[in-house]
C-alpha cells in the first residue's frame, strides 16, 4: 500500500493548502446532504406508528450521537499516533476536534431530551445509552479542560493525548458497565452490516443527514486546524507568505 498520502497530511504546509482548496467544497456538500436529508425526512418520511411526528428528531439526534462517538474514537487514535510516532499534526487535529465532539455530544443529549418528553413523558431518563453519551460529554470536557490548562503547548498536547488514550481504552469498559447497569432504551437505530428495521423512506433521509453531518464536521475540523496551524507555525516562512497573500 502506498502511504505517501498519509505522510503528506503530516506536512503542515501541504495540509493547510489542501484544506484551503477542499474545505469549502466539503462543507457545501455536507450542507446539501443534510438539507436533502431534512427535506426528505421532515416532508416525505412516514410517521412512526407509535411515536407519531416526534420521531423526526432522529434526523438530528442520530447523526449527532454517531459523531460524538466517532470523534472520540478519532481523538484516541490521534493520541496514539502522537505518542508513538510523534506526528506533529496529531495534537493539532485533537485540539480542533475535541470541542466539536463536545458540541456533538451536547447536541445528542439535548435532542434526546426533546425527543424523550413526548415519547417517555420525561426530559431525562437514566437509561444506558443516554448515560453513556453523558459520560462521553464529560470526557470531552475533561480533554478540552486539559488542553487549555497548560501554558506549555507541548505538555498540553501530551497530556491530552494520554487522557484520550486512556479514554479510548476505557470507552468499551464504560459502555459495557453502563449497559450492564441499566438498559431500557430502544436498540440501536443503525447497525452496520444489518438491514435497518425501519422502512427505507425513513432510513434513506437519515443516511443523508448522517453523511451531511460527517462532511460538515470534517470541514469545521479542517478550518479549526488551519487556525491552530497559523498560530503554531507563525514563525515559518510559508505562514508569512500565506498571511500576506490575503492582504493583512
Amino acid at each position, binding site marked *: 500500500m502506498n502511504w505517501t498520502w498519509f505522510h503528506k497530511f503530516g506536512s503542515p504546509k501541504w495540509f493547510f493548502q489542501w484544506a484551503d482548496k477542499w474545505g469549502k467544497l466539503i462543507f457545501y456538500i455536507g450542507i446539501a446532504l443534510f438539507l436533502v436529508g431534512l427535506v426528505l425526512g421532515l416532508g416525505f418520511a412516514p410517521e412512526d406508528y407509535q411515536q407519531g411526528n416526534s420521531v423526526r428528531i432522529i434526523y438530528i439526534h442520530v447523526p449527532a450521537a454517531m459523531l460524538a462517538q466517532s470523534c472520540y474514537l478519532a481523538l484516541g487514535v490521534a493520541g496514539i499516533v502522537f505518542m508513538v510516532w510523534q506526528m506533529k499534526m496529531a495534537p493539532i487535529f485533537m485540539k480542533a476536534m475535541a470541542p466539536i465532539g463536545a458540541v456533538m455530544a451536547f447536541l445528542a443529549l439535548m435532542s434526546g431530551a426533546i425527543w424523550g418528553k413526548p415519547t417517555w413523558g420525561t426530559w431525562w431518563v437514566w437509561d444506558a445509552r443516554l448515560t453513556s453519551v453523558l459520560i462521553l460529554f464529560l*470526557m470531552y470536557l475533561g480533554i478540552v479542560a*486539559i488542553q487549555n*490548562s497548560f501554558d*506549555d503547548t507541548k*505538555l498540553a498536547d501530551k497530556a491530552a493525548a*494520554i487522557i484520550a488514550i486512556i479514554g479510548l481504552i476505557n470507552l468499551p469498559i464504560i459502555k459495557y458497565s453502563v449497559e450492564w447497569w441499566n438498559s431500557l432504551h430502544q436498540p440501536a437505530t443503525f447497525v452496520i452490516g444489518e438491514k435497518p428495521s425501519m422502512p427505507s423512506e425513513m432510513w434513506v433521509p437519515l443516511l443523508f443527514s448522517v453523511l451531511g453531518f460527517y462532511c460538515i464536521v470534517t470541514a469545521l475540523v479542517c478550518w479549526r486546524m488551519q487556525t491552530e496551524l497559523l498560530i503554531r507555525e507563525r514563525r515559518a516562512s510559508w505562514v508569512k507568505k500565506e498571511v500576506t497573500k490575503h492582504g493583512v
Partner: protein
Amino acid sequence: MTYLSFLKSELLAVFYRKQDTINALAFFLIVITLFPLGVNPSADFLEPAAGGIVWCAASLAILLSVESLFKEDFNDGSLEQLIASGLYLPITILIKLVIQWCAVIVPLLLLIPLFSQMLFLPWSIVHVLIFTLLLGSPALFLVGTIGAALTVSLKRGAVLVLLIILPFYLPVIIFATGAISAAQAGQDYSGQLAILGAISLLSLALSPGMSAVSIKASMN
C-alpha cells in the same frame, strides 16, 4: 539512591504526613454524613443506598489524596533527583502508590464496620463491601496517579484532576455497588468482584508506565 532507601524515605514521608491520612478519613466521614442529612435519615433509604454512598465517598477521598502524590516532590526538586537517580521510574511510582494505598485504605477498612452501621448496612453484607474496596480501590489509585502525574506542574490542579479522572472511575463504582446490591438481594456477586479485580489488573499494567511518561513530560 536505591529502591530500598527510596521505600524507606517514602514510609518516613507518610509517617510525617499523618495528617493527610486523617484528613482523607475525615473527608470520607463528612461526605457520608451529607447523605442522611441531605436526603433521608431513615433506614429504608440508607440501607439500599449504603454501598453507593460509601463508594462515592471513597472515590472522592482517594482521588483527592492521590492528586497531591507528586506535588511536594515536584516543588522541592525530589522528583528531578528521582529521575536522575537511574532508578526505573515506573517501579518507584508503584512503590509510592503502594505506600499511599496502605496509608489510606487500611485505616479506611478498619473504620468501615463503624461507617456501615451508620448507614444501616446489615452485618452480613459488610464483608462484601470490604471485598469490593480491596479489589476495586487499586484501580482508583492507579488511574488517579496518571492524572496526578499529568498535572504535577500546575499550581492548582485538583479540580482538573477530578474532572478528567472521575469518568474513568465510573465502571469501578458501578461494579462495586452492583456487587453490594447483589449481595443484599441474596444473589451471587463473585462475577462483579472478578470484574473489579480485572479492572485493577488492567490499570496495574498500564498506569505506572503512563504515569512515568506523564511525569517526564511535566519536567521543565
